[in-house]
């Protein structure tokens, strides 16, 4: 039961983008079209789940060796390697998506949502199963926020917006309003 609550909480109540304000860079950068948003979300879910599991295991080793202070740098190493692997894989399997994501694919490495997720799993003392479901939830939450926002932005392209609000200004305001909407979920799940 707790695992299901963790999963739903990561998607809605503590959405990584809209509530924790992590991963804003790809959120604003890849949400112009729904197709790229979906591709980016899948890549992020993959990296998040794998990175969380590997970092959780490595944290066990670090604690055993008394080297907990190396947490940050070891986690970054894991995330960077995983993202590089995703890049290599995508370039071969789907060059179209690879070109569409452009610079934002290697930027997943610096996506604070991934490192934040890894560190949060340790901070909340989650077991392996809880870690997996938290990461799945975080990934899906990220995807949800991204795809929702991409849909909104695609519609906004056709709207008659006053000149000062065109472009990034309007986008940021919209993101804020979307975040406010998600506040409606707070308190729904008490972990």
């Amino acid at each position: 039961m707790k695992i299901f609550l963790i999963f739903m909480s990561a998607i809605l109540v503590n959405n990584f983008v809209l509530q924790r304000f992590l991963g804003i860079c790809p959120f604003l950068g890849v949400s112009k079209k729904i197709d790229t948003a979906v591709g980016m979300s899948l890549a992020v879910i993959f990296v998040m789940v794998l990175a969380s599991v590997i970092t959780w295991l490595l944290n066990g080793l670090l604690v055993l060796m008394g080297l907990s202070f190396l947490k940050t740098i070891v986690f970054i190493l894991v995330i960077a390697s995983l993202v590089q692997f995703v890049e290599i894989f995508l370039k071969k399997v789907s060059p179209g998506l690879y070109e569409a994501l452009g610079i934002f694919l290697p930027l997943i490495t610096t996506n604070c949502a991934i490192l934040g997720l890894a560190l949060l799993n340790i901070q909340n003392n989650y077991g392996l199963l809880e870690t997996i479901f938290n990461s799945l939830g975080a990934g899906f939450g990220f995807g949800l926020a991204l795809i929702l926002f991409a849909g909104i932005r695609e519609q906004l392209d056709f709207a008659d917006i006053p000149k000062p609000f065109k472009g990034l200004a309007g986008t940021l305001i919209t993101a804020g309003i979307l975040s406010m909407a998600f506040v409606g979920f707070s308190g729904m799940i008490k972990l």
Partner: protein
Amino acid sequence: MIFINSIILMGALGLVFGTFLAFAAKKFEVKEDPRLTKIMEALPGVNCGACGYPGCEAFAKAVLKGDAPHDGCLPGKRQGVPDKIKNILEE
């Protein structure tokens, strides 16, 4: 002792991930135009973006497509890069 343990651990992790990536790069290799590699080797490889493209690989691809002029690489102009590109494309 902690010092040595840290070095050993980081070194081991680097080795493991490096090997994994090298293996993956070989397995998922994308067959590219051999002229692309030759042009990239002729370029300075600084990725400065002065040519207007995001990195040396992008400029090399544009040259192959015919979108970029041979002398588009600013730091390369002094090193004889335009002539090298001309030779590679004429092969």
